[in-house]
């Protein structure tokens, strides 16, 4: 095979483009750069369009960054003005996924001297390390077995209650020279369902959000598959921030990710935004969904109702934990609550960590629908 010592000068722009993309946090592997150049050669290239198509096909920018990719392409190959990349300032709910944002996060954490942000962080972590007073350690240990389970398609070996495992039995038969020893069995595995926590971080929930985040951290650490989102005026996924074992660090990182602390609530639109991202709404399918919110939706609750109905159609169990429900005089009588009550499986007290952990640990046992319970009370 011919191995040129150095690339032809004509190849340099393509290498440079790959490098430029990498500088802007596009994940481009060397083999992709190679295929890019091969593709350009294969196509001719007869026009700039060919180069663009080749870049799209081989460098595979993810769909949400397609516009940014095109802007870089134009500025690099056509010499257009530097792309100004900014989020669209429309009234759509902003969605923030913590994947790929890690580099920036690290920096924000490093510079957390003074300022609002760090005071918020201290608030979050000030009560840490006082032994297991809040019972979260125990919660974490119990959670893995307490989450409801479902039967998977995969099978596992078992000694009793199963169907014949022909593959292993046959090898036994062969090694026993045709005799059939006791048959070996297999049965379908059970795997625990996903746990999805949607945490309201708006102003009205201010005094509870710190506790909720600790709970969320314990849930991510304890459960096999947990996903955590916060919502206020925006939607933020904080699961991978909370995967860090150390609670203080995890909460600090999560706190830095969320931009809409203690602001207003747009519960309906943010939940709809959650459902409109296929990857996110797939988290809700067959999962135990717990919404931690007071469900005080300002204005029209139509969106909230639609969102909750869609969520409940996907979820295995949809629960709303409201801090207001801790009060014995509480009745679900606001228009929004009345509208969503029929689709809720549970409406429970979310005013303290203790009651919440008890509730989450009891998710696997059945309970009457929220509507029946609250009808009885009122």
């Amino acid at each position, binding site marked *: 095979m011919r191995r040129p010592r150095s690339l032809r000068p004509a190849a340099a722009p393509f290498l440079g483009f790959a490098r430029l993309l990498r500088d802007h946090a596009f994940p481009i592997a060397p083999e992709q750069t190679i295929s890019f150049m091969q593709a350009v050669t294969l*196509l001719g290239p007869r026009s700039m369009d060919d180069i663009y198509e080749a870049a799209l096909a081989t460098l595979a920018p993810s769909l949400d960054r397609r516009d940014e990719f095109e802007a870089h392409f134009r500025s690099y190959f056509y010499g257009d003005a530097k792309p100004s990349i900014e989020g669209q300032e429309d009234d759509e709910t902003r969605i923030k996924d913590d994947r790929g944002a890690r580099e920036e996060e690290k920096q924000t954490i490093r510079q957390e001297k003074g300022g609002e942000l760090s005071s918020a962080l201290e608030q979050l972590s000030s009560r840490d390390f006082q032994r297991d007073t809040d019972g979260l350690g125990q919660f974490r240990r119990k959670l893995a077995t307490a989450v409801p389970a479902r039967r998977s398609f995969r099978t596992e070996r078992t000694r009793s209650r199963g169907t014949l495992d022909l593959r292993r039995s046959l090898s036994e038969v062969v090694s026993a020279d045709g005799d059939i020893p006791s048959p070996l069995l297999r049965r379908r595995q059970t795997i625990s369902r996903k746990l999805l926590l949607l945490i309201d971080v708006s102003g009205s929930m201010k005094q509870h959000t710190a506790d909720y985040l600790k709970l969320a951290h314990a849930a991510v650490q304890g459960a096999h598959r947990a996903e955590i989102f916060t919502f206020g005026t925006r939607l933020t996924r904080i699961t991978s921030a909370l995967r860090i074992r150390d609670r203080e660090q995890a909460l600090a990182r999560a706190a830095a990710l969320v931009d809409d602390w203690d602001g207003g609530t747009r519960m309906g639109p943010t939940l709809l935004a959650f459902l409109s991202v296929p990857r996110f709404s797939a988290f809700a399918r067959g999962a135990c969904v717990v919404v931690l919110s007071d469900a005080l939706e300002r204005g029209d609750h139509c969106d909230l109702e639609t969102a909750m109905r869609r969520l409940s159609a996907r979820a295995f169990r949809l629960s709303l934990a409201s801090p207001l429900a801790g009060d014995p005089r509480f009745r679900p009588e606001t228009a929004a609550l009345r509208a969503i009550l029929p689709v809720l499986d549970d409406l429970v007290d979310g005013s303290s960590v203790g009651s919440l952990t008890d509730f989450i640990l009891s998710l696997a046992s059945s309970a009457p629908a929220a509507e029946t319970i609250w009808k009885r009370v009122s």
Partner: protein
Amino acid sequence: MANADAVAVAASPEEIAARLAASRYLADDSLATAIFLAIRLRKPLLLEGAPGVGKTEAAKAVAELLGRELVRLQCYEGIDAGHALYEWNYQRQLLAIRHAGEHEIDIYDDRFLIARPLLQVLRAPDERVLLVDEIDRSDHEFEALLLEFLSDFQISIPERGTIRAATQPIVILTSNRTRELAEALRRRCVYHWIGYPDAQREAEIIMLRSGDVAEATAKAVANAVQEIRARPLAKPPGIAEAVEWANAATILEKGGSLWPEAFRRAIGVLIKDEEDLSAIAPELERIVEEALA
């Protein structure tokens, strides 16, 4: 030999597009380029797009244009090696052991091997195209297995040794993007995002795919469907639904309904979600009127 054929077929993106059109699939330049690159660079082709934009149809058309058989592996949660690679036919093996009595038999013979899609393709890479459909539904473990297969094109069967493909087979993967695929998988493939076609192309597709829909009807349907897709629906209608709608409306019209009425009555084949239906109902009349104008 057969690979030379593939190269001859894939002489240029235009050639591909023309041949796809001959097998009744209208591809835009971008898709034709991606298919061309996948065949010539010998990489798997990863097609992503919303449900109903014709990803699977594209794979079928590619198989047809290469004159090869399409082997389809439908993914689902919990799919494992036994469904994708191979399995032994244990019942037959047991019977054979019984039957053989004192004689020696090879129970790991070809007769007892059930080839699943990946093995089928390995055995005849020049005659088959592999379609791994809806890979986003499978779980991460399966993705890793597939990744290994796609890089080496070989399968190890402990009882038989390693089976290698003589030449690199053509593989097409599709994903609805309900979850993000592993970066490693995207990296290894030629990638193409299939979007919804514009009104004109959609009208052409409707003409090509449906039985006897008039050109004016096809155009009206394409315009109306574009308009409907622009709304925030839970299940935006795909191309297949648009074709069905054109067909259904044509049948109703032949049965005596007037045009706008025929479209309205056939809406059930286009929108299959009760909430979406009630959301679109008040505006439907206006949309249809405008599309017909």
